[in-house]
């Protein structure tokens, strides 16, 4: 048990009171081992962002406990949290969130400087990291001159510079095309495995499932069994088997659909081509 980097026990986040009360996350528990890559998926509004904010020590849970390397970070005082975020977590965002006025080297080094590293060391470390990520030629570029993939690699460098125990990535591939997105995720996986860092990724992106060690499904603020989930063969959406609005049996297999429209399309394809086709992935 103590070997987990992150241990989340019975965490709940409630907003509002009385009639307006909303349970964004309810009674979630989770353990992440060192070097493990966990992908959390789920529909919009399922509580992914709230959970991620709590995991990242940006938001405090209403109930429950979050431990990082044994420390109960959910109990830390508010003004102690930035320090935790700075030294223990690396963040990667959907919009990259690089500082537009700074060069990419400065973007990376500034986080180390915030953590108290001397400027020269921070730059040296930043240069090494960026070199390792293939951005050695771009050190003094401003973010607006970079492609999306390059920006996200800068963000990875920034997330790594303080040697965090845990990297939190929020929709890291949302603004990238599928090839680049996949490359970036493979890069992240290699880093996690080589350096034994845990990674939690929150994403809708089915294409990065293969890089994850474990996939969790979050819906209505709770983790659901991934086993009970099926993929709609037409639109690619995840569908809960028991609650699927439409199903179809074909040659002994059951297909689950997000809506009747998808099922009809599937049936049409079967008639026309006689094969299970037109799957989008």
């Amino acid at each position: 048990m103590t070997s987990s980097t992150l241990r989340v026990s019975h965490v709940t986040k409630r907003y509002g009171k009385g009639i307006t009360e909303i349970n964004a996350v309810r009674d979630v528990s989770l353990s992440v081992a060192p070097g493990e890559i966990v992908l959390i998926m789920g529909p919009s509004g399922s509580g992914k962002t709230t959970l991620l904010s709590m995991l990242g020590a940006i938001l405090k849970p209403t109930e429950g406990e979050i431990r990082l390397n044994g420390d109960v970070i959910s109990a830390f005082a508010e003004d102690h949290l930035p320090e935790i975020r700075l030294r223990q977590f690396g963040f990667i965002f959907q919009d990259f969130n690089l500082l537009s006025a700074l060069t990419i080297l400065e973007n990376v080094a500034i986080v180390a400087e915030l953590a108290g590293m001397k400027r020269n060391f921070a730059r040296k470390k930043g240069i090494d990291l960026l070199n390792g990520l293939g951005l050695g030629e771009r050190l003094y570029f401003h973010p607006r001159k970079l492609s999306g993939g390059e920006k996200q690699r800068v963000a990875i460098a920034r997330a790594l510079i303080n040697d965090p125990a845990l990297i939190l990535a929020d929709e890291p591939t949302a603004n990238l095309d599928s090839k680049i997105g996949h490359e970036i995720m493979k890069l992240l996986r290699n880093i996690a495995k080589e350096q034994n860092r845990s990674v939690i990724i929150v994403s809708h992106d089915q294409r990065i499932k293969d890089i994850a060690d474990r996939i969790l499904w979050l819906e209505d603020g709770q983790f659901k069994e991934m086993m009970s989930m099926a993929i709609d063969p037409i639109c690619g959406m995840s569908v809960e088997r028991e609650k699927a609005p439409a199903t179809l049996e074909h040659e002994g297999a059951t297909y689950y659909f997000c809506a009747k429209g998808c099922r009809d399309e599937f049936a049409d394809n079967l008639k026309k081509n006689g094969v299970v086709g037109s799957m989008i992935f």
Partner: protein
Amino acid sequence: MIRLAFHNLFQNKIRFIISVGGVALAMTLILSLDAVFTGVERQITAYIDNSGADIFVSQKSVRNMHMTTSSMSRSVITDVEEIPGIEKVTPILYLTNMVVSGKERNLAYIIGLPENAPMGGPWKLFEGRSYPRTGETIIDRNIAQKSKIGIGDDVEILGRKFKVVGLSEETTNLVNSVAFISISDFIKLWGNSNSISYLLIKINPEKSSSDIAAQIEANVKNVTAQVTADFSSQERRVVKDMSTEVITMMNFIGFLIGLAVMALTVYTSTLAHRSEYGVLKALGAHNKHLYQTVISYSLLSVLIGLALGIMITFLLSIILTYLRLNLTLAISGVSLLKVSSASLVIAAISAILPIKQIAGLDPAMVFRGK
């Protein structure tokens, strides 16, 4: 974080120009107005400082020359001459009148000089003769240039024609110049031969001028005797006292303008970088780091604006000397100190609102796509 402030400052050109330009404008305003009056203060005592006298004697309770009048009985001359330690006494007549040439009229101190006066005449001559005889005058070179006249031409002073025989330098200021005529002409025009305006006194260099001034006041009735330096400082105080409140008011306005521009640009800059401050917060930057950035930003732009303002004022003062507008800008240390502290106050106040804005920033916004 200071570097981030620096980068943010230069990132948006329009905002940079407005903030730095606004402060520079406001500071130039304060500085140049101060400098105008400091300049006038210096120019206005030119005659007194260069008269060559150690002591000025005037009508009782008259302590300066500008915007005033002094008249004493001629008997004062002999009374003063009897006091030991006095080497030379030069009586002058003085009033403010016009030097007229055609349509050109210029306000001037008219000084009536005795023949061979050892003091009180023009101290720097551009051309011609330094003492006027009957029917002659020495006027300022700039006034002559402005009126397009030279030596040998006529001008009208106190309603009578005088022939220009000399052109003096350093005898103009923003308001008036100095013209010299002979004391006998002055008496004729003044219509009163028993009166003089001031006595210029040269003392034995071994004696103390303040002692002798005190002796003059003790022994001669109805006069005020002041050491030249005191007389000169009284003259400066006339300008100072008259302008202090106007300057204070204008300074305050300049300050408000600078503050308005700076507060606004720091605020909008912070607003524009709001999401980035949110990212930094999420990454683990403390509020104090972000405050540091905002304060550096406001301090940096104020300081650049200030430096620019000082430069513009210095440039202006140099340009003005070439334009011969009789307007000198004299930038004093006090004035520099004043604008510098005003700038610091502006920088501090401007940072207040943005700091409150940042304090209220929720780092969780980074996950919500802003």
